[in-house]
């Protein structure tokens, strides 16, 4: 990367790429924080539409100022700390929850390469990538920051000295670490297809080829499900199951500390959707198949178009997540654990095996057949797997004490 010519002296690390990275970070950070607030409004609106209600519509037109009012209100709310709480950890936990969420997006390529010569009024040349930091282990960095979020949740539950919080924190950390394994294995399937862990190159491979959603459909489904579980979204919101645990790990939190937990959740949702878009939906690629696509390098208009495409995909995924939340009922904890450990991990291990075999045979363009083969193996093997007793006993109604008829066959009452 050649530094752009500038009139005055600057420190050596301030190159054109550095300025572009800082601008990207600045824009996306504010976008993420603003969108986190507006996703809450969107969530309430989607919930209202699903349940045939109107939703918030008092503050501003269509309720659009609701997030601002909520934010201001939360700043002015009283914060309190229950007796016996661990003061340091209690204050630290929301910060530990929101910081990993906020630093994750830096490696996601939000648009392609900007040709500096196309910017008017500035005498610049060269190209810059529209990404916060184009690190060569970007995917691993992203998954590492995502898994750091478990500390905030676990510590928040522990520090509160509340039984609900404690159980919620335990459940949440258990769930997050369990779903991280199939997530990592599905990520490996994508890396085997792309041959790189640099996010910009993964997008580039999908620009010239097909989207990895078509290459690895099974991995995409498992990855998306794990994303929901990692972000503690329904149907995996065991950690804050209102009917059982009041509020889960944030029962004792109030004011902006509570809001930081929620901001972390929605920023996670935003970053996770962007991650999914980069891995499986081709980033700013418009054409899922071979052939014409958005050019990778271009002027400001092209870059803005690419950014818009990525944001559109993220928005679609977020709305899908919200529809799922208001459609599916919550899992029970043993079902959740069985789905992760006895369902997803064997399937993704099998998928990894099949994918690496396909790569060995050189059939990288037919990886979709690998997903089909994995599905076939599962369907064939499933009836022959050793069974364990089903915990969900069904008590027959007739003859039980709930039966409307007594043993002689005449009606009770």
């Amino acid at each position: 990367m050649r530094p752009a010519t500038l009139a005055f002296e600057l420190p050596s690390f301030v190159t054109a790429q550095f300025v572009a990275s800082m601008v990207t970070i600045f824009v996306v950070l504010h976008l993420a924080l603003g969108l986190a607030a507006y996703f809450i409004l969107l969530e309430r609106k989607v919930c209202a539409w699903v349940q045939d209600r109107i939703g918030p519509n008092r503050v501003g037109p269509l309720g659009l100022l609701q997030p601002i009012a909520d934010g201001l209100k939360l700043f002015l709310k009283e914060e309190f700390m229950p007796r016996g709480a661990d003061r340091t950890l209690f204050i630290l936990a929301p910060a530990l929850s929101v910081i990993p969420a906020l630093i994750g997006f830096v490696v996601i390529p939000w648009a392609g390469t900007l040709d500096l010569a196309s910017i008017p009024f500035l005498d610049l040349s060269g190209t810059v990538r529209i990404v916060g930091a184009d690190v060569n282990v970007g995917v691993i960095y992203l998954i590492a920051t995502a898994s750091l979020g478990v500390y905030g949740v676990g510590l928040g539950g522990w520090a509160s000295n509340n039984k609900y919080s404690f159980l919620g924190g335990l459940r949440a950390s258990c769930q997050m670490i369990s779903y991280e394994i199939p997530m990592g294995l599905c990520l490996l399937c994508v890396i085997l297809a792309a041959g790189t862990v640099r996010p910009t190159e993964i997008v580039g491979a999908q620009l010239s080829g097909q989207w990895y959603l078509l290459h690895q459909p099974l991995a995409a489904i498992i990855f998306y499900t794990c994303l929901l579980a990692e972000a503690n979204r329904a149907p995996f919101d065991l950690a804050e199951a209102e009917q059982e645990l009041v509020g889960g790990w944030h029962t004792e939190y109030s004011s902006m500390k509570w809001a930081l937990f929620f901001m972390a959740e929605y920023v996670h949702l935003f970053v996770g959707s962007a991650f999914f878009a980069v891995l499986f939906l081709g980033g700013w690629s418009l054409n899922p198949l071979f052939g014409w696509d958005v050019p990778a390098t271009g002027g400001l208009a092209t870059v803005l178009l690419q950014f818009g495409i990525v944001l559109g995909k993220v928005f679609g995924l977020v709305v899908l997540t919200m529809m799922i939340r208001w459609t599916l009922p919550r899992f029970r904890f043993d079902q959740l654990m069985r789905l992760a450990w006895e369902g997803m991990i064997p399937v993704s291990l099998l998928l990894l095996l099949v994918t690496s075999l396909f790569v060995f045979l050189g059939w990288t363009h037919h990886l979709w057949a690998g997903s089909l083969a994995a599905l076939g193996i599962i369907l064939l093997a499933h009836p022959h797997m050793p069974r364990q007793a089903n915990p969900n006993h069904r008590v027959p109604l007739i003859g039980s004490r709930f039966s409307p008829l007594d043993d002689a066959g005449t009606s009770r009452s």
Partner: protein
Amino acid sequence: MPILILIVMAIGFAVVNTVATHLLGPGRGGQAKESTYESGMNPFGSARRRFNVRFYILAMTFLVFDVEIIFLYPWAVTYTKMDPGSAEAMLYLGRILFFIGTSVIAYIYAWRKGVFRWD
């Protein structure tokens, strides 16, 4: 470098929010207000009690798999660079299958021991 700046920004955001809400919000404590929430009942005992050992066993099993997956990333990048079907790729595939196989044995053992059963 941008990552470091972003980390500083994120820490600043978290600190400013926590401090601001501490300064702006009212602070009227009280005996009842400071007690932990237990659905309106008087709280009893501490919440830091013993919990199910399954959480601990599951965390250990997770550790095994997570470390294994970390080792698989460099393998995946190197492996895809090789000629398909070559003897070297065969060697790499065989080695990693052995590596995964060792932890799959542990995984099957844990499964049969009922580590993943929560009912």
